[in-house]
């Protein structure tokens, strides 16, 4: 009898989780972590009964989860390419797709004990042993980085120094800990790290960093998902995003 009593207690405790009514799950690029967390209470206040649930990771990893049937309602990617792949695989509602922020790529080094990198060419020097970059297969910032370094004919010579990170935030972590002498992140991430990292330069030669968002085709909360997308383009949300350094779409 005892085990059953325990089991029913567990079930009783789990029930409230199961019946939580209007939950919207948003899979968002890692670089959006801090801004979205701040936006959540504002959105929830405007839609009583609705709760936002976030899943932050590299855009490519999020796409992969969605393609394998993860219960996601809204997908926000850090590049157009990942969203284009989602369109090709018919995973999102193309009509709902909107661009909501822009960002820029920066080269950073640790604020203390850095190698004193000033130009892209300096990365080839012996003082730079490790360069943190996003994995090109799944992390958008890695692909922007590759475009820049390919343009400067530096990708192949620098390749032995690369430490491939699972998301832009891991690149940031490697550099702010001083384990890598340089890394490529977004301006907004460099701002989050505060005085731990220093922006060396803002390279050009990559496609503009523009973030699209869309509702997921299999979503059961499409109306609320649409509301969230509309909210992202509202003045209130754009103000918060701008404070984190994101540009207007």
């Amino acid at each position: 009898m005892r085990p059953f009593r325990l089991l029913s207690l567990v079930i009783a405790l789990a029930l409230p989780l199961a019946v939580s009514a209007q939950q919207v799950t948003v899979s968002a690029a890692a670089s959006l972590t801090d801004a979205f967390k701040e936006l959540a209470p504002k959105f929830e206040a405007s839609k009583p009964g609705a709760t936002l649930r976030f899943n932050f990771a590299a855009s490519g990893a999020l796409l992969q989860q969605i393609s394998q049937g993860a219960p996601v309602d809204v997908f926000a990617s850090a590049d157009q390419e990942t969203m284009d792949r989602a369109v090709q695989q018919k995973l999102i509602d193309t009509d709902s797709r909107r661009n909501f922020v822009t960002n820029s790529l920066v080269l950073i080094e640790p604020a203390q004990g850095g190698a004193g990198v000033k130009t892209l060419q300096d990365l080839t020097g012996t003082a730079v042993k490790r360069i943190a970059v996003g994995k090109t297969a799944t992390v958008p910032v890695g692909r922007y980085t590759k475009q820049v370094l390919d343009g400067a004919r530096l990708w192949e010579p620098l390749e032995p120094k690369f430490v491939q990170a699972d998301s832009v935030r891991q690149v940031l972590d490697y550099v702010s800990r001083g384990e890598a002498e340089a890394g490529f992140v977004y301006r907004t991430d460099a701002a989050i790290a505060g005085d731990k990292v220093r922006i060396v330069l803002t390279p050009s030669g990559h496609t503009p960093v523009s973030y699209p968002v869309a509702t997921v085709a299999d979503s059961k909360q499409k109306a609320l998902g649409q509301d969230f997308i509309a909210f992202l383009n509202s003045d209130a949300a754009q103000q918060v995003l701008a404070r984190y350094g994101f540009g207007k779409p």
Partner: protein
Amino acid sequence: MDWFPLVLSLKVAALATVLALIAGVALGWIFARKRFPGSSVLEAACMLPLVLPPTVIGYAILVAAGRRSPLGAWLREHLDYTIIFSWHGAVVASAVVALPLVLKSASAAFANVDRSLEAAASTLRQSPLSVFLRVTLPLAWPGILAGTLLAFARAMGEFGASLMVAGSIPKQTQTLSMAIYDAVQAGHDDMALLLVSITSLLSITVLVLSNRFFSLR
């Protein structure tokens, strides 16, 4: 097919197992035979890697040996060496995670050795070291070997702590488990399935061997 991750995993697991074996046998013997103030707390601390999340182990190694740590700074300054982002880091991480498995088996094996046999050897004018090498160790050996094989299997499967310390650098620090993670994330399901099959087959072989030795006791 790129065999590098498999070869690296075998190399890392083998070296980690050697480290865990040496430390595990020494500590196992101490905990089985010596009681001193704080010994049970120390034993529990040595078993921690078995229950702690690998991320905690990884973080602990980063804090202890990372560039900002005294040890990491000294190594970098004097030897131009860093354990971070090198496969040596994966060895250390795997050894720490595998240690409890050797330690527990060794300590149980030592506790099961009949003390009167050791006493008899002592009366035959054998030195304590000779008693250990010629009586205690041979009697405890099957248990230790079984634990060592478990440790090897665990080290082969190490992922979290190694990823944090060594990173996932193709052709340098990318082990089998990291290659699987990458393949899944990038949607290369065929590659993932192949790597999963290889690692499962290897682990089953090692576990079957380990069970043989456990039943030998």
